[in-house]
C-alpha cells in the first residue's frame, strides 16, 4: 500500500510531498492501523470547507482512500498518520 501526504498552500505556497511504500508484512503491520484509525468518510465534508488564508492544505492518500484536509483539521489519528509519513517517508517536491 502506498501512502502519500501532499502539503500545499502556506504563505510560501511551496508543495511538499512525503510518501511511504508499505510492502513488507512488517511495514503493513506498522502502517495499516494508522490508516484504519482515520475517519476517511467524515473527511469528505471537510474538503469543501473554506480554508483560512495562507494555511496549509493536506491531500492524503492511502491505497484507494483519499482525503483533503485543512491544516487545522489534521488532529488525532490524521496527525499521527501525517507526522509518521513526514518522519519516515521519502520526500519529494510536488508539482503544483
Amino acid at each position, binding site marked *: 500500500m502506498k501512502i502519500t501526504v501532499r502539503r500545499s498552500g502556506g*504563505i510560501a*505556497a511551496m508543495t511538499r510531498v512525503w510518501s511511504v511504500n508499505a510492502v513488507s508484512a512488517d511495514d503493513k503491520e506498522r502502517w495499516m492501523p494508522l490508516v484504519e484509525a482515520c475517519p476517511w468518510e467524515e473527511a469528505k465534508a471537510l474538503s469543501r470547507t473554506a*480554508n483560512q488564508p495562507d*494555511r496549509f492544505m493536506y491531500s492524503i492518500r492511502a491505497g484507494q482512500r483519499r482525503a483533503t484536509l485543512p491544516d487545522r483539521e489534521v488532529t488525532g489519528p490524521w496527525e499521527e498518520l501525517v507526522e509518521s509519513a513526514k518522519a519516515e517517508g521519502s520526500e519529494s517536491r510536488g508539482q503544483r
Partner: protein
Amino acid sequence: MLRRLATRPEPRLRAIARAAKESLLHIKGLQAARALPVPAPPPSARQAKPGPPQRTIFDAASTETLPGTLVRKEGMPPVGDAAADEAYDGLGDTHTLYADVFERNSIDGAGLKLDATVHFGKLYDNAFWDGHQMVFGDGDGEIFQRFTRSLSVIGHELAHGVTQYTAGLAYRNQAGALNESMSDVFGVLVEQYARKQSASEANWLIGEGLFTDAVQGAALRSLKAPGTAYDDDVLGKDPQPDSMDSYVRTTADNGGVHINSGIPNRAFYLVASELGGNAWEAPGHIWYGTLTSGSLPAACTFGKFARTTIATAEELFGSGSPEHDAVLKAWETVKVKV
C-alpha cells in the same frame, strides 16, 4: 489630520468620507454589513483619529495551541526573544501605515487589538492570520528561518485581516489571487513606509530574509518581477506569472491564489514605478480606495478589480490625470481586459 485633509484635493475627500462610511459599516461585521444599506456617517466619523496600537504577543512554546502564554503587552520593553520582539515591532509598523497613511484605526477600522502568537508548532514553516490573530512558526531551519524576520510577511498577514473586514474577497480562484495580492501590496507598503523608501529604492519583495543560506533565492515573491524571487535545485523556480498570457489554471493552492497574484501585484508595481515617489501615496490610496470601495464582490474577477482601480483613480485624481493614465497602462501591460 485636519491640516492634512485641507491640503488634499477635493476628490480625495470624497473617497475618505466613503472609506469612513465603509469602516463604520464593518464594525457591525462584514457579512451583516454587506447586506445592509449604507447609513450616512455621523459628522464625527471623518475626524475619528486612529488610536495607538494595542499589541499583545503570546508564545505557543512549540505547541499548536492558541494563543499561548502572554510574553509582551503594549508598552512593555523588549523581552529579548527575537521572534516576540520582531512580531511586536512589526504589528506596530503595520498599525502605523494604516493609521498615518489611510486614517484607518487598526485592522477592522475600529481599533481591533493586535494579537500575535510566536513559536507556533514544531519547525513550522508558515505564518497565517486565523481570522482573529497572527500566528508565526519558527521555520524548519533548513529552508526557512523564523517568519517574523520579514516585515513584509507581517504586513501581508495583517492585510488578510483588513481584506476580511472590507471587501471580504473569497479565498479561491481570481478573487483569492486578489486577496493574496492585497496582502502582498499592503505587505510591501508596510515595509516601504517603515523604511521610508521610495518606489525606486524599495526591493518590492515579500519575505526577504526568510530563506536560509542554503536556498538560491531572495524571497518568496517579487511584485516587480513575478517569477524571479527564487530558483533553487530543491524548491524549483518561483511559479508566478507576470501577465494574463501565462495565467496558471490549477486546483492546487485554492486555485493558484499565491501564483496568479503575480499579475495584479505587477500592476500595482507598474503604477508605482510610472508615478515615482512613494508607493504608499497615490498608488496606495488608489488600491486602498478600491479595497474599501464597497463595490468589490466576494467573487471578484481581475477585470472587475482593474475597473474599480481605474474608477477610483479617476475619482481621486481626475480623468486623464497621470494617476488615472498610469493605472490604465498598468492593466494593459499585464493584459487584464478592462
